[in-house]
């Protein structure tokens, strides 16, 4: 029998991916939760009385997030008003199933649940969008819409903050992708533990220093109820490359994953673009009209192929209606 390196009495059942320590279950739960508590305290993520929306997809990260947030809120008397917030993209056979999981979570953790759907916000489900534009670039729509949908849902609930289940692996992956895409402005933003502090609702990532593997372990040992299916509308191929690379990297040197080494870059960047507001929906945006409005406009006008070119100023010129230019002139 292997002995737990922490309590010296229990039977070690896990080797922590982060530190390679052998631990028994209770000790693993303890250090896992305590590290997240420490992250929350060190970064002053919350204050008493905050209304906090937990972004819940029904997947492992958000399920563990709901579990840990409710546990820590009780254990340390954060005084937070927690609730679950889900986005229904309208993907039959995927999201409808995972939302069932979230509904069970709601009963289990006894916190309210709010579901906002693409259909009610934009008048389009992802099923309908895919039917219209096919399987290429559909993820662009989904990603852009989801970001806004979460904010809108949270505002409806009068939330002060949103917490998401982004873990260290996710952040490392995003850093890598932003480097590969040459997207410096996103690179500056993607590693901070809180984003959108100024205009939009602040988003917190309490799992910033948590390894994905440990989250899976935690969910597995605690037998948490979560949904684990990839989205049926094909996962992003490019992301797949990056993900495989990071998996291998973690095998070579586990500490490569942790955000710490990367986040310093933020300060080293010379150019930080200004963020303004969308002239149509008032949502935070780097351009005069936000991406969601542009995409939505194209969908409604039935010409989605033109502007998915992405990332380009040309896009704005082509699609943004003349009214925007007027706004600038006035």
């Amino acid at each position, binding site marked *: 029998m292997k002995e737990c390196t922490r309590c010296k009495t229990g039977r070690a059942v896990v080797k922590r991916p982060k530190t390679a320590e052998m631990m028994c279950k209770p000790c693993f739960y303890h250090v896992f939760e305590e590290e997240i508590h420490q992250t929350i305290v060190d970064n002053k993520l919350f204050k008493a009385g905050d209304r906090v929306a937990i972004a819940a997809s029904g997947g492992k990260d958000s399920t563990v997030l709901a579990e840990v947030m409710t546990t820590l809120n009780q254990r340390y008397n954060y005084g937070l008003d927690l609730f679950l917030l889900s986005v229904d993209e309208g993907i039959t056979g995927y999201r409808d199933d995972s939302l069932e999981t979230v509904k069970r979570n709601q009963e289990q953790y006894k916190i309210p649940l709010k579901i906002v759907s693409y259909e009610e916000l934009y008048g389009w489900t992802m099923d309908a969008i895919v039917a219209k534009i096919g399987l290429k670039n559909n993820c662009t729509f989904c990603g852009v819409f989801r970001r806004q949908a979460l904010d809108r849902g949270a505002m409806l609930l009068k939330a002060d903050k949103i917490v998401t289940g982004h873990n260290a692996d996710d952040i490392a992956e995003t850093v890598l992708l932003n480097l590969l895409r040459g997207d410096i402005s996103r690179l500056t933003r993607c590693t901070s533990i809180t984003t959108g502090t100024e205009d939009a609702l602040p988003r917190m990532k309490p799992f910033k220093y948590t390894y994905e593997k440990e989250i899976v372990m935690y969910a597995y040992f605690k037998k948490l109820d979560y949904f684990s299916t990839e989205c049926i509308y094909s996962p992003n191929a490019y992301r797949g490359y990056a993900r495989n690379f990071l998996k291998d990297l973690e095998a070579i040197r586990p500490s*490569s994953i942790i955000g710490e080494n990367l986040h310093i870059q933020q300060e080293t960047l010379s150019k930080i673009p200004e963020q303004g507001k969308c002239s149509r929906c008032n949502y935070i945006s780097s351009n005069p009209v936000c991406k969601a409005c542009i995409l939505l406009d194209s969908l409604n006008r039935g010409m989605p192929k033109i502007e998915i070119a992405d990332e380009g100023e040309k896009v704005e010129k082509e699609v943004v209606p003349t009214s925007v230019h007027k706004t600038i002139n006035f």
Partner: protein
Amino acid sequence: MSEGGKFEDNSCGEVPPEEARRQADRLKKKISDICVKCRTEKSTLLFRKESICWPCYEDQIIRKFKTQLNATRKNKSQLEKVLIAFSGGPSSRALIHILNECILGRSNQASAFFEIGGIIHIDESGVTKPETAEEKEKLAQVAASYNIPYHSVPFGSIFNDSENPTQETNREKIEKLMQGCTTNTTREDIIFHMRNLLIANTARTLGYEKVLFGTSASRMATTLISLVCKGRGYNVAQEIGNNDTKYGDVQFGYPMRDFLGKEVSVYNHHKHLEDVFLPSLDTKTSDPKFSIDHLTESFIEGLQVDFSHTVHTLLRSSVKLTMPKIDQPMTCSICAASLLPSTTSQSIGGEGKEDSCCGENGCGGEEWLVVVANISDYVCGGCHRVMNEISPQVLPPYVQHNADRNGRSSRLRSQIEDYLLDDGE
């Protein structure tokens, strides 16, 4: 590279349709029998999606080279005497030729601003298998064919220590250094940094202010990602930026940074420039997870095949990364990178806030505990990870000297701290 030297990047899978269509269009239009540049010669090569003839290809290479070469100039009015770092590889081989050509006639400008003072090669015998007499001869021959003075510096001289001479030969010390590392990643990492340090030190001794490296775009891109993965993200600018200040008065320049590996190969092939193949640590491995550098290299190579813009996009990213301004004279005891206030002892040396960092596993043994504490307190984030994967007693003596000096200066600083005005202002 195929015989005719003809090559092209594969089309891209994941680019937006708009872009893909444009590229396809461009490709369709540009492939012509006649060179699109001079419109007289028959085209034989495809260079960045343009079909051109060899003289125009050469012209493009020289032109892009000069742009990059100019970007390395700090003092725009003075003649700079440069040292060329020659690994034996194709890219540095091409660098010697192109620079020499620029200076000797093709460009008045280059000859007015640059003078090749010498070629330096670090002999890594001991790290890998020793260089044979034939290899040594070949390397020296390259320099001789251009009439440039040649300096071959043994890697072992990084261990030279005038204060405490020891019985062991440098070769034995290299072997111990290699054995003292627990991972290939760390082996490659310290070789990289010590090699650069050795080049900088030698350049300084010989009176040079600038060293030019043959690092290609492909290599640059790989280095960027692997630096980030090794926890050296914040000093990317110092490591691969053009006007770096890492080694103080000796500046490193990378005039080949615009060229893909294969573009260099085409050039060398046409010019009959032979490189000298010297094996590196990962030459013979078949394990994709041999080390972070090795993994990153195959990752970028693979991406480049499917997405031909990968390398140049990465380079564009790297240019935008800069070092934060820090008013702190301390540098890493191992690799000489500037220490950020947050990477020095306060945050990583003592009780680590991340228990991930200070791995207890592997580092026990009280006899060198003191040494560990000392060096680890004055290394950068990346080297802190190195310290977890190496027995500190095998490190060259300069590391300890640097750590001691850093220690003294930080003690001094703490004594007068109360009287210092807010730094950074």
